[in-house]
């Protein structure tokens, strides 16, 4: 394992530790979405996934 991988791992650990309180806070304060709200999110994400698959075909 070279030093770059060790530094990357350490940086990721620090970032994760930094994000945990913010994540907990967001989970507590986020509003609940209805099924219609979730469909409004899922459909564009599916379109993005299909678009990326198209890009893979073009390479």
């Amino acid at each position, binding site marked *: 394992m070279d030093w770059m991988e060790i530094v990357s791992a350490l940086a990721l650990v620090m970032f994760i530790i930094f994000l945990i309180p913010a994540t907990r806070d967001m989970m507590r304060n986020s509003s609940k*979405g209805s099924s219609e709200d979730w469909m409004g999110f899922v459909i564009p994400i599916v379109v993005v996934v299909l678009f990326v698959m198209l890009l893979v075909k073009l*390479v």
Partner: protein
Amino acid sequence: MNQNYSTVAQRSSSAIATNKVLRSTYMLLSLTLLFSCLTAALSMFMNMPPMTYMISVIGGMVIAMFVLPRFANSTAGIGIVFLITGMLGFGLGPILSMYASLPNGGNIITLSLGGTGAIFMGLSAYALATRKDFSFLGGFLMVGFLLVLLAALANIFLQIPAMSLMISAVVIMIMSGFILYDTSRIIQGGETNYVLATIGLYMTIFNIFISLLQILGIMGNDD
């Protein structure tokens, strides 16, 4: 009657303020993306070593997390945003040089750039046109992002190429969600600081680009 006029006046001044934040955000985002391109080109020209990427990303993230929030309400914040985006662009240079040296490297980079632009503009247009409130996504996206970081940490030790591909795919989906969430926050008035809004959107674009490069780089060299 006077109460109706007052309500209408309040609504239109709120809409004007939101439009101002939107306009300022997209203007600053365009300028920072351009600046990033310039620093990336400079880095490629200088043939910077691969570790430049890691140093630039870590440095940029530290400044974004600890320095920028303190200056976000002053003009110094704009300078700091350019510093962060310039650093991240400079770090991209060695990555782009590596992909450019591949047999169909030019194709991979062009498709990644075009794909990132299309994803960002498409999702932004969707959020702006529908004016849906995506605030319910906040907790879900943050948890997803944390899980991706944990998977990335595990993969540093496991070194599984398929896992790397999966991580990049999930990053694209999560960052797409963040585009909807961040844009919706600006529209709904939840984010009134265009400096913070810009850096949020810039990071999503940066992550989508890097992930697309990785996916297309792996899939493009499978033949």
